[in-house]
């Protein structure tokens, strides 16, 4: 018993030293007036170059779209690993039955969640949001359905196979959009650099291929996280 306490004290001292070190580093970094060449370029020229007024989406799907491809691959790998590791039986561990009040209110909420997610995806280059947030709301919808109506209700409509198919289609769509940059004469995933219809900044149809990439990534993120949750919720 005494040894465990000694371990805890030792860990506490180590962790406190680490916290002090992190705080010192952060304060010294914050004091410096560092030049932000890339950020200044994105802010000054981003709207004219990409046609998207949301600079974060412009970075994610135009300047650094290759980064986003890697990010989408991480979700794909995680969904594959989780679906592979966990057993494949059909029984559910979520056996609790909710009252009709909860079921009715969730049934009332779900269409609105769907509208919010589609709004976030299609206006991703104009307002806060984008493919990732919209996809996460889609996966939250599937989590709500599983919790409220049960695992079987969900898998009768969307099983892991169907969701994985949609995820693959999303990934392939994103790669195809990347090929459009090569066809137009630029590099892979090039968008505004090769002049693919930047449009009028602020309008719905602007930003080149950005809305399409948003939809592809949203399909991927939403179904990928749904597959992860479906796999975690089942049990042998």
């Amino acid at each position, binding site marked *: 018993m005494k040894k465990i306490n000694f371990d805890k004290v030792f860990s506490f001292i180590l962790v406190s030293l680490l916290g002090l070190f992190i705080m010192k580093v952060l304060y010294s970094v*914050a004091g410096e007036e560092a030049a932000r060449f890339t950020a200044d370029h994105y802010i000054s020229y981003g709207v004219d170059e990409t046609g998207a007024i949301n600079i974060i989406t412009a970075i994610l799907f135009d300047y650094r779209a290759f980064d986003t491809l890697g990010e989408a691959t991480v979700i794909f790998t995680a969904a594959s690993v989780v679906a592979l590791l*966990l057993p494949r039986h059909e029984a559910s561990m979520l056996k609790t039955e909710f009252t009709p009040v909860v079921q009715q209110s969730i049934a009332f909420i779900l269409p609105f969640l769907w509208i919010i997610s589609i709004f976030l995806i299609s206006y991703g280059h104009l307002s806060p949001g984008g493919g990732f947030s919209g996809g996460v709301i889609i996966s939250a919808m599937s989590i709500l359905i599983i919790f409220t109506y049960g695992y079987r209700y969900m898998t009768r409509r969307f099983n892991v196979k169907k969701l994985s198919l949609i995820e693959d289609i999303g990934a392939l769509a994103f790669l195809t959009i990347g090929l459009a940059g090569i066809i137009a004469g630029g590099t892979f995933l090039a968008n505004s650099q090769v002049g693919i219809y930047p449009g009028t900044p602020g309008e719905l149809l602007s930003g080149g291929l950005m809305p399409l990439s948003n939809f592809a990534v949203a399909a991927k993120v939403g179904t990928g996280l749904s597959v992860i949750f479906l796999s975690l919720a089942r049990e042998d």
Partner: protein
Amino acid sequence: MILVFPAIAILISMGIYAVLTQKNMIRIIIGISIVESAIILLLGAISYIPDGVAPILDQPYDTVVDPLPQALGLTAVVINASTTAIMLALVIKLYNRYQTLDIHEIRKLRG
């Protein structure tokens, strides 16, 4: 701004303390998640500039906060979710095999 940095340091320390001292694997995962959340908070804090507006440029502006760490934060959120899911899946596998969540017990039962 003054108070965010101690909060980040405390959160990272708390998470690592949980990883070091807890025996239950679910609690270790919670500790790792706390560290990951602190990193996202850090990315938000270092992108902040006094009087900066959000990087959505639909109206005239003076200063804009740094958009690059925010884009990286989005990446970090997605990777956090993926790694947490994989850790939980591994914990489910370990529990099915050893019937315990205690990491010291599992280390003793190896083989």
